[in-house]
């Protein structure tokens, strides 16, 4: 069972929900932080890190001895990662997606690939939680290869909770892809509602069932509630805007550890999610992205 926690807008409480949910379960659980640009789960979980593995992307290496500067590689590359200027071929590694096309098209076989490190994966354990998170190297533009690597740790026999990055573009889809259910964390403000609507559109398109967690309930306005009612979207949990919760967050302490009644609320949230996910599987609207996947 894979549950992803997403929001569209940043800073609405994705990490808070993912961490508190994982901590409240008394069983063995996997927690994956797919926000590899700014991973924060480890700040709250503070695991002992047992394993650090580099993430590589294959990048072209041109043998200037063999290259005759025909420019075919540069012409082929969709990502403008190779330029041939006069009698020099220049590779821009940060732009390379690692498709291997340049190697295929080079008539002189002058291009080989070498592994370039773009990030790391860290694994650790804290209590009942196995934490896996990625860190994109600063200056690297593409988080997706690191996200894919984080997700290779998923154990289908366990409960896996995924903390999804903010936004609505490719890293978000990559993180949610394959989930049985998605929790949308929002806040009752115009910004929160706007970005939640974008996420609803996406989740419908990729056919992942979802429900909403309203964080900072009490601030802003009531429009998010009106929208959920009109669209028939279940609100599964409300976390009030309370000074104590905000203070605990600011020092990196998951609030369910300090306010124990929340553990029960998060446990019932998960059982609710499990029921809804299996109901949705039974009704046939499963998680395929496109036919044939």
């Amino acid at each position, binding site marked *: 069972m894979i549950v992803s926690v997403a929001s569209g807008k*940043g800073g609405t409480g994705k990490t808070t929900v993912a961490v508190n949910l994982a901590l409240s379960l008394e069983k063995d659980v996997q927690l994956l932080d797919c926000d590899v640009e*700014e991973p924060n789960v480890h*700040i709250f979980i503070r695991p002992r890190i047992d394993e650090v593995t580099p993430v590589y992307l294959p990048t072209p290496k041109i043998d200037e001895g063999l290259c005759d500067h025909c420019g075919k590689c540069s012409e082929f590359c969709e990502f403008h990662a190779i330029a041939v200027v006069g009698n020099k071929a220049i590779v821009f590694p940060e732009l390379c997606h690692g498709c291997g096309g340049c190697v295929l098209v080079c008539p002189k076989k002058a291009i080989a690939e070498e592994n370039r490190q773009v990030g790391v994966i860290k694994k650790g354990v804290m209590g009942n939680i196995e934490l896996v998170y990625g860190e994109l190297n600063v200056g*690297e533009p593409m988080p997706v290869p690191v996200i894919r690597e984080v997700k290779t740790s998923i154990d289908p026999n366990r409960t896996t909770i995924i903390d999804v990055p903010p936004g609505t573009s490719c890293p978000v889809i990559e993180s949610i892809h394959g989930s049985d259910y998605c929790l949308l964390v929002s806040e009752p403000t115009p910004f929160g509602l706007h970005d939640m609507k974008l996420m609803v559109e996406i989740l419908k398109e990729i056919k992942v069932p979802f429900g909403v967690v309203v964080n900072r309930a009490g601030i802003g306005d009531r429009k998010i509630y009106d929208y959920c009612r009109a669209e028939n979207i279940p609100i599964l949990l409300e976390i009030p805007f309370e000074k104590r919760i905000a203070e605990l967050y600011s020092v990196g302490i998951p609030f369910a550890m300090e306010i124990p009644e929340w553990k029960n609320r998060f446990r019932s949230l998960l059982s609710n999610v499990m029921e809804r996910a299996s109901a949705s599987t039974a009704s046939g609207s499963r998680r395929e992205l496109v036919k044939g996947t």
Partner: protein
Amino acid sequence: MKQATIVSGKGGTGKTTITASFAALARRVVVADCDVDAAVLHLLLDPQVVTEQEFKGSRLASIDTARCVECGLCQRACRFDAIRGLEIDPVLCEGCGVCAYVCPVGAISLRERIAGRLYISETRFGPMSHARLYATEANSGKLVALVRHEARRLADREGLGLILADGPPGIGCPVIASLTGADIAIIVTEPTMSGFHDLRRALSLAHHFKMTSSVIVNVWDINQENTRRISQFCEQEGIKVLARIPFDPKVTEAMVAGKPVVEYSPDCMASAEIRVAWDGARDLLGVSSGRRE
């Protein structure tokens, strides 16, 4: 022409609230919303669209099943696992063209895909360039580069000396595209463990691109000890803290009213401190107002 980009690393720290208020204080300025996949600046600036155009993202492979001989070469050559049977997964396909290259019978072609829209608008504080990346699309960096290109054209056309860009969260491609070529990065943080952690990564990114950075601590009073640590860290690194904005319920009220807080409630505590930040930013940029001198 000067360009300031407002970023944060962590989402939800107040980038858009501050950008909108800076625009209101500048009175006439070019605004660029570089958060193209979860854009919300328009909710505060109410832009009236003047022109719009389609944004072509990466290409998408497509298999002509009538010609396909099902040899499987494309599937083996695809590094992104985007071909299953005779179907292309539009989410996984990066448009590199390797499948079309290896296909022995020419059954695969690459098609343009419309990945979003780019808008040029007029707001009560000056012209604005912004965009909407369609849900699930990739290439946000490319669209951000277009938004900034249009912003520079608008500044030239209208003789305006300053561009304010509202950046996305994270440190990946759209953030890099928002920062490159800007004169200063203004990093908005909050005094939480996550805010501080993400600030350090955002600062190293700005440093990586050899940019001048400055910091705004938002809701500084929710954890004064962390604010002190952030200020101390910035001092050690030689980074100017432009302002410390207090927690103020007027900020959310202004968002609900759809206005920048300095316009909605010019005398509130948050507005007073945002003006201090604006004066500091103008000093760093060496501009006295939005108008070109």
